[in-house]
């Protein structure tokens, strides 16, 4: 029996093995085969549970306690160093890209210094205290898929933690102990103490409990939705970084250098940087030592493989990479080290094809590596990135992330000189994405008219495999947004061309680094900005309209979220104003609360490793919390449910204020009665529910967004212009104006669940439309070009992003003709000024069968809202929404 067969046997014994019928159209050529080594890894992933352990938090906490009284940034660095140094090494057999976040292939761990209660058993007193807080409300309405690697129930010796992660029962006593040691000291607890002093505390709590807002960002995911920068490790190596930090320590010791507030902090940051890098070096060298021991063991057959890995790790633990293999391995280690420092989703890879181009180009030219080996490494890399989990609460991981961690890889765009940036390595990255279909890294193409037609067709070929990637982002629109937002911080026309996508589709500021290899000069792009999608996340727009209609009261929870005003709108304009006033109040209250949380985070939990990676922290000696990054105006306000809001406003305007078919009171009564349907049911009526049939029919018949309808589209334009203004009235803790971010991720599920029926005919609890430019499922009846007309009546560059999902039946894009048409469709949207579009190429019948028989669809992937995920790991509300999306069979 081969290893592969044995692997399948044990997976079958665990009930984790699945196979499935093909979902693609029969006439479409099947994707090229995945390389055998990556397939072994992928099959292992399919059998791997999301596993958590306490090794990292144990050593972190123990050392943190030991250094009480130390300067906070240095104390944290010592804790991080100890944690990295003591992680168990595990070089998994057959892997050429080695190491992972923890000893488990798909591992993560709690960070009780951020938040220490959500992962405890429900009987624990700490858990119960936390459950009473507004910030825990999202957990109740968030659902994980019950399949794949999600551990939604305890079994055997495995305890289910936070509804998703499995931990061995031996470690549970340590988990509980760690949580209690951080009680009252975590960022969450300290923030809460201060939040209670706010005059708006009760309203903020009610906004969270009613799920107007989905989550607090300061202690859940304080970093991420940004682009990492690999430049310093790649160019200096870890020893070079330490050398530079030590030189700076000598230079700045005891000097304020004109900055009486932050000047003296620099010394401590440099010292902290050296400590953390030492910890990461030890982590790498522990893996080297394991390889050396295995290479010398007579029982091990593949000793040459371990010897090569040991030599590679030995070198890059200290030095800059010498070749492509080392460069890719080092960039990956830097990535997972970054993710181990904080709870992070969406630490995006950026433009990897351009970052690694100097090594690729020269190694290929010299014959040091061939394209087949690069393709194998890139496929293994895909599996390694797919294994990245983020340990956070059910509301965050299930309700927002759907288990994904958004390690987005950007392709295309322009070089510093304005020419197309596409290179041969980017072609291979796309090819690896075709051959090795995995959710991560998801791919994003920065569409620009200057990109080569052949590359665009290659990317469309990848889309047609049904992988859901690449997504398409409008390079020019993105650059316009960045120049407007970061111009005041010095961004110029050359910088802006380094643009990349962080997280799902968060346009992120980057810069170019000059790099020289063997006498040839290159410009390497890298992230240069603070996290985005921190601030206010997410605002449930239809829920806010519901509160505006009900005098500020949330009927689901019975909470008076906003003060009652007792007024009923007598015109559409008054209703619109009432909505805007409530939304602006919510934004202000939530912004201030989140500013405070992030302030506690930066004071007590400053990022050291993440800081030193990005410009200009190592130059200035200031970490991210002291605005050491080049660009700091990154905080934003995220929205959810745009299409439902716009449709509901159109319906109210037409049915109540223009035709006067109903009074506003009659309509509100119908909405609050769920149009006479039993809550949670799409068919069952309440006794006497028929009396709302007229209202229900009128709401369903009202014009809908996505059909090139002037009334609805003008409402969207009004909304977008208001949202762009209102968000910029909010100020982040860094003193910068905020801006709109219009992606739903997965929040349209739980926030829809918390919202009563809306005037667009959507019933109570039904998931909102995804994204922001997607139509509500089934309501876009005039084809995609009409949808594009509706979506582009406003300036997309006024927002960090917008999000459009389209679902295509495979037959609609079959063959060469289909490729041509899909590229033309994409180009049409980009040319009209749309920022983003992505496709699910899938037959809805396959999705329905997958919902009935998930065990047979372990490898089925779908595009949700900015990311691709395995079907079986997505909660049912989002599955239902993806099934319900309009399926285009012709266009």
């Amino acid at each position, binding site marked *: 029996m081969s290893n592969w067969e044995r*692997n399948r046997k044990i997976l079958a014994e665990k009930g984790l093995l699945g196979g499935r019928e093909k979902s693609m159209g029969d006439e479409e050529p099947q994707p090229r085969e995945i390389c055998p080594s990556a397939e072994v890894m992928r099959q292992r992933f399919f059998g791997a549970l999301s596993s958590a352990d306490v090794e990292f938090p144990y050593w972190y906490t123990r050392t943190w306690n030991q250094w009480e009284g130390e300067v906070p940034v240095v104390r944290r660095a010592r804790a991080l160093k100890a944690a990295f140094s003591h992680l168990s090494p595990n070089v998994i057999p057959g892997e050429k890209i080695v190491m992972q976040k923890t000893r488990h292939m798909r591992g993560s761990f709690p960070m009780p210094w951020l938040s220490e209660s959500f992962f405890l058993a429900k009987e624990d007193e700490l858990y119960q205290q936390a459950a009473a807080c507004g910030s825990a409300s999202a957990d109740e309405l968030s659902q994980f898929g019950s399949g794949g690697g999600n551990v939604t129930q305890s079994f*055997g010796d495995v305890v289910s933690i936070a509804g998703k992660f499995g931990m061995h029962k031996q470690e549970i006593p340590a988990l509980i102990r760690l949580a209690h040691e951080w009680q009252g000291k975590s960022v969450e607890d300290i923030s809460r103490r201060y939040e209670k002093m706010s005059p708006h505390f009760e309203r903020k709590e009610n906004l969270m409990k009613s799920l107007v807002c989905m989550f607090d960002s300061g202690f859940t995911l304080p970093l991420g939705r940004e682009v990492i920068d690999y430049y310093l490790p790649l160019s200096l190596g870890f020893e070079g970084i330490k050398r530079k930090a030590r030189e700076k320590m000598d230079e700045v010791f005891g000097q304020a250098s004109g900055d009486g507030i932050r000047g003296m902090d620099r010394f401590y940051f440099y010292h902290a940087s050296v400590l953390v890098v030492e910890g990461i070096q030890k982590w790498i060298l522990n893996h080297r030592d394991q390889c050396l021991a295995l290479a010398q063991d007579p029982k091990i057959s593949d000793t040459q493989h371990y010897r090569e890995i040991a030599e590679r790790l030995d070198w890059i633990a200290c030095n800059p990479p010498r070749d492509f293999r080392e460069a890719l391995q080092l960039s990956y280690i830097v990535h997972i080290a970054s993710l181990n420092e904080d709870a992070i989703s969406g630490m995006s890879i950026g433009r990897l094809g351009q970052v690694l181009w100097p090594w690729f180009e020269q190694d290929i030219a010299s014959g040091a590596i061939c394209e087949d080996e690069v393709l194998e490494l890139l496929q293994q890399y895909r599996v390694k990135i797919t294994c990245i989990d983020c340990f956070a609460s059910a509301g965050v991981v299930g309700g927002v992330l759907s288990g994904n961690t958004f390690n987005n890889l950007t392709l295309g765009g322009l070089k510093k000189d304005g020419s197309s940036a596409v290179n041969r390595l980017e072609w291979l990255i796309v090819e690896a994405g075709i051959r090795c279909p995995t959710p991560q890294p998801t791919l994003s193409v920065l569409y620009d008219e200057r990109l080569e037609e052949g590359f665009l067709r290659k990317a469309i070929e990848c889309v047609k495999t049904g992988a859901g990637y690449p997504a398409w982002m409008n390079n020019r629109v993105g650059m316009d947004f960045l120049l407007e937002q970061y111009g005041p911080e010095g961004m110029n026309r050359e910088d802006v061309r380094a643009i990349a996508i962080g997280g799902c589709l968060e346009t992120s500021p980057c810069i170019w680094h000059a790099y020289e290899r063997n006498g040839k000069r290159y410009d390497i792009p890298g992230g240069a900005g603070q996290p985005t999608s921190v601030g206010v996340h997410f605002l449930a727009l239809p829920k806010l309209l519901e509160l505006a209609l009900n005098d500020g009261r949330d009927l689901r929870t019975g909470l008076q979220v906003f003060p009652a005003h007792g007024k009923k709108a007598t015109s559409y304009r008054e209703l619109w104003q009432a909505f805007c006033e409530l939304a602006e109040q919510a934004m202000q209250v939530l912004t201030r609360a989140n500013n405070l949380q992030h302030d506690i985070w930066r004071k007590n939990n400053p990022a050291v490793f993440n800081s030193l990676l990005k410009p200009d922290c190592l130059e200035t000696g200031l970490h991210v919390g002291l605005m050491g990054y080049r660009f700091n105006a990154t905080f934003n306000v995220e929205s959810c449910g745009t299409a439902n809001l716009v449709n509901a406003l159109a319906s109210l305007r037409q049915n109540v204020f223009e035709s006067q078919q109903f009074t506003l009171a009659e309509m509100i009564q119908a909405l609050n009665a769920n149009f006479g349907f039993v809550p949670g049911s799409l068919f069952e009526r309440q006794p006497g529910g028929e009396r709302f049939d007229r209202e229900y029919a009128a709401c369903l018949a009202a014009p809908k967004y996505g059909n090139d309808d002037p009334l609805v589209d003008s409402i969207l334009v009004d909304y977008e212009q208001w949202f762009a203004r209102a968000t910029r009235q909010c100020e982040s803790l860094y003193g910068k104006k905020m801006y709109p971010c219009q992606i739903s991720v997965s929040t349209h599920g739980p926030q829809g669940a918390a919202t009563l029926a809306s005037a667009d005919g959507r019933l109570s609890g039904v998931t909102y439309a995804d994204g922001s430019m997607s139509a509500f499922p089934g309501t876009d009846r005039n084809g995609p070009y009409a949808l594009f007309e509706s979506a582009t009546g406003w300036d997309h560059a006024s927002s960090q992003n917008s999000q459009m999902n389209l679902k295509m039946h495979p037959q609609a894009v079959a063959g060469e003709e289909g490729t041509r048409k899909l590229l033309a469709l994409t180009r049409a949207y980009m040319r009209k000024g749309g920022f983003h579009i992505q496709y699910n190429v899938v037959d809805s019948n396959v999705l329905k069968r997958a919902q009935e028989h998930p065990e047979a669809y372990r490898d089925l992937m779908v595009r949700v809202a900015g990311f691709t995920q395995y079907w079986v790991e997505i909660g049912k509300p989002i599955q239902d929404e993806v099934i319900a999306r309009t399926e285009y069979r012709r266009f």
Partner: protein
Amino acid sequence: MRQHQDCFYYSPIDVTHGVCRVSGDPVLGDKEACDQHRPLLRCRDCAHYSPDSQQEMGICRGFGGEYWTIPSFNATTCEKFAPGEE
């Protein structure tokens, strides 16, 4: 009972199973180890470790003073590990 997960050759994939580096086979971590077993160092094997009154926890004195630990922690990366009595 000696288990696969206590073996130097065990490469953990998740909380339940791993891969044996000698045979290449996937194995369940809590199953009885084979005759190729090479013990992995744990806190409970260390001279600085002593059991706590609470059965599942222990005390580490390896870094000066006392701090709690659990017996099953991997000790291969611990700079203070000292072999205990058999």
